[in-house]
């Protein structure tokens, strides 16, 4: 292991965090809040730690391999969360464990909160919560690679470890340029959303917070009832942008390069749109016919509620506009399934990712065919290309480990005396692991993790990190043999 290089890059990550913290500090300053001091102190700590670590571990060689890439990403994310939680606790508004949960939930774009009423938080902290979504959505290392010249020739290993999805490719020959393009698209879409929200009469602060939150597919808002109190126009804007951020960013690049035809041919995109249409349709019918709460609402509102929740759950954002806990079980079941699916690969969404799900189904189809014709030789085709066996194998392995981890989280939650309810334990484990946020049962909606025990909060924090980084990086970093000489 090139430990010096690992710590050097981790130091850079922390310095970058110090720079990023300047934005919420500025917000606090504008609103003349006491939390501004908390931010300044944290910036000082991060800058000192970051530059210190980088300075003492200046690497002799910047060669890294896959193992180093995993270690950098895992360590970087853990430290970032630990330090990112400081402003919450230094300002005295939230206790440290709660602050840690909140920050992890932010960086991993989960959006589950432990704060009973987030309306009581100061504006700087509300902004920071949403900003962590934005940073975590595209990934902080991608950001660093976009701005630091020549990190390493092999920075593709870092990119692979941070960007979720079964196969990670580059858009253009150089990692640095790829990172820049991704962030340009990301910033442009975020700005577009903020403008649309402003047009709907939202205040500047709230529209920026919600744009950040949607962009990272996170789900932190500024009110306890999430976004239920906003106008239908704003809810539609949010729904559409959530869906947009759940699309593979490579497709946007293709559109910018005027290859719209190729982009629209993407099979994953088509599956994504079909799922949104079919699930919203079924939920709409279910709500319309079977739900007493929607008996007197007009059809348009019911349609909006159905589409909004499907896009919110499918893209793993987690905004809500209604109390889905009282919905009929068919609708709840469908929403529960979408918790697993996630958006497209290469988007900011969490979950399994649709391309993995599609590959799993195709793999199952191939297995069936093979049972009927044992001598048949079949290849699995996806996006017009045959998928190699190694990728298929890693997808199915990932799915097994993924299920084991969700099961483990569920099991550990069972020890919590406050939430001894099967439905709550299961759905909150699934929801956190897939970085969605909301869950069914005990409390539902945002703010629901407040009553969980400290142990459960830590378990869920790890579950969120495991889910965001797709298990392997963290698993490797926590294995002692990774760090011994090899």
């Amino acid at each position, binding site marked *: 292991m090139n430990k010096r290089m690992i710590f050097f890059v981790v130091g850079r990550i922390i310095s970058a965090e110090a720079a990023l913290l300047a934005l919420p500090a500025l917000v606090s300053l504008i609103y003349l809040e006491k939390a501004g001091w908390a931010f300044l102190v944290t910036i000082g700590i991060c800058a000192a730690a970051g530059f210190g670590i980088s300075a003492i571990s200046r690497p002799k060689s910047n060669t890294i391999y*896959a193992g180093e890439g995993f270690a950098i990403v895992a360590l970087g994310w853990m430290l970032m969360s630990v330090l990112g939680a400081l402003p919450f606790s230094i300002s005295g508004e939230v206790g440290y464990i709660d602050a840690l949960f909140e920050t992890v939930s932010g960086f991993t774009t989960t959006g589950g909160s432990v704060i009973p009423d987030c309306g009581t938080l100061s504006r700087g902290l509300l902004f920071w919560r949403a900003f962590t979504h934005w940073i975590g959505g595209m990934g902080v290392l991608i950001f660093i690679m976009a701005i630091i010249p020549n990190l390493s*020739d*092999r*920075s*593709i*290993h870092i990119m692979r470890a941070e960007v979720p999805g079964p196969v990670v490719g*580059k858009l*253009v*020959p*150089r*990692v*640095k*340029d790829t990172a820049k393009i991704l962030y340009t698209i990301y910033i442009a879409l975020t700005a577009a959303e903020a403008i649309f929200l402003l047009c709907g009469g939202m205040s500047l602060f709230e529209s920026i917070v919600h744009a950040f939150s949607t962009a990272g597919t996170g789900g932190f808002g500024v009110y306890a009832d999430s976004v239920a109190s906003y106008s239908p126009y704003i809810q539609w804007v949010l729904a559409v942008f959530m869906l947009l951020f759940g699309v593979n960013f490579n497709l946007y690049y293709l559109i910018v390069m005027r290859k719209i035809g190729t982009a629209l041919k993407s099979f994953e995109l088509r599956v994504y749109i079909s799922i949104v249409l079919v699930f919203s349709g079924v939920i709409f019918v279910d709500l319309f016919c079977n739900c007493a709460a929607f008996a007197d609402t007009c059809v348009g509102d019911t349609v909006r509620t159905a589409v909004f929740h499907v896009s919110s759950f499918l893209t793993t954002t987690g905004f809500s506009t209604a109390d889905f806990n009282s919905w009929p079980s068919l609708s709840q079941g469908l929403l529960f399934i979408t918790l697993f699916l996630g958006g497209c690969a290469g988007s900011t969404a969490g979950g399994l990712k649709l391309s993995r799900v599609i590959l799993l189904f195709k793999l199952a189809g191939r297995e069936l065919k093979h049972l009927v014709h044992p001598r048949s030789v079949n290849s699995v085709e996806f996006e017009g290309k045959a998928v*190699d066996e190694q990728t298929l194998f890693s997808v199915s392995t990932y799915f097994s480990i993924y299920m084991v981890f969700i099961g483990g989280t569920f099991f550990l939650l069972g020890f919590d005396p406050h939430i001894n309810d099967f439905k709550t334990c299961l759905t909150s484990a699934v929801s956190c692991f897939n970085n969605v946020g909301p869950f069914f049962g005990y409390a539902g909606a945002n703010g629901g993790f407040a009553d969980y025990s400290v142990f459960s909060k830590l378990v869920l924090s790890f579950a969120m990190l495991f889910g965001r980084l797709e298990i392997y990086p963290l698993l490797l970093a926590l294995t002692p043999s990774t760090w011994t000489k090899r």
Partner: protein
Amino acid sequence: MRVIIVGSGDIGTSMVSSLVAEGHDVVVIDDDPAVIEEITNIYDAMGVCGNGADNDALNEAGVDKCEIFAAVTGSDETNMLSCFIAKRLGAKHTIARIRNPEYNDESLGFLCQQLGLSSSVNPEMLVAKEIHDILKFPSAVNIESFSARRIEMVELMLKPDCPMNGMALYELRRQYSSKFLICAVQRDGEVHIPGGSFRLEEGDRIALTASPAEIQKLLRRLGILQKQAKNVMILGAGNTAFYLAKLLIANGSSVKIIEKDEERCREICEQLPEAVILHGDGAKQEILLEEGLESCDAFVSLTGSDEENILISIFASSQGVPKVIAKVNRPELASMAEKLGLDCVVSSRRSVSNILTRYARAVQNSLGSNVETLHRIMDGKAEVLEFNVRGDFAYIGVPLKEMKLKSDVLVAGIIRGRKTVIPSGDDTILEGDKVIVLDAGHILRDLGDIIQKQ
């Protein structure tokens, strides 16, 4: 600048490595996904899996925006077809690797013209020429030539009995003629550009420039001149051996080629009636000794296996052959071979990637081709470039000592018409000259780049 490279074998990989280091956007096309995966893991380049002659793969690689397109797969025909299609799809410059001797005769010009190729490279031919140059000057480890051969750069290894050991450069200059310049010294893996008080030591690898006649004179005075190798034994009868034998025979040397494959023996026998072709396994020492290994002037090992070349060459050295040259394609093995005492190692990938690097720099220079030649010396740690001096160079007529050159840059020679100038501080650069510059650690695209920016 976008460069597309088709084929990621030895040569393709070394091209990718040097072009990425120069800061270009490199896309590699290969039909083996495992190779693509490997290469994109090591270098910051993009990989496209597919056939280099298929326009889908070419479009995916962004051929319409590419400045240089190089096809270097093992198949000449694929390379030509790829370049032809790439040109049609909008690639600006196309370079194909064409190595079959049947194409590499008079018909090459016609082929290039019809296919719209900007250039063709033949790695085997380049290596053969390199070996041929060394065999003309066997005292040298390596020899690089520039325009019209008016000036040459020779790399020498200072053997224990060399009279230059322990001398400072100013003493050398006083004692011998002043018509040569020691430009670089490699000691313990590091390249130094020596000043006048620099003392040479045993085991140094030095590079000096002078006109060919002066080099002869100097080597004779030093007592290390070896005559041109007249009696050469070549192991392996691949294309390189064929080209080399042809060059040597044209020069009046006698050539013996040992080859394992009988079919190939007959083939090459028809093409080279003057050479002695032997059928046998060169790895067997018996055969080498029987065919008079001890009595030949030079031994060149050109089999397909790097390891075999190294081991047999070590054996040949131990038998007292004055000049032993081994072809070692893998760079990591090449440096190990040098540690084992083989001072003379050639590689086809290095020569080809030098050519492409020079081409890329020339293309990138907005004013058109300015870099005439580019060589990498001292294990690639230093570069020697030959520039054409145009009217726009800001220091025309200014004595060299008044120019503020970048550190680790040296003006190693000036070719003025038919005259060779070995520069001292009072010499000037004039329009129309060709200037040879040695540099360690920068990327020079234009002669103006040698000046220290304020």
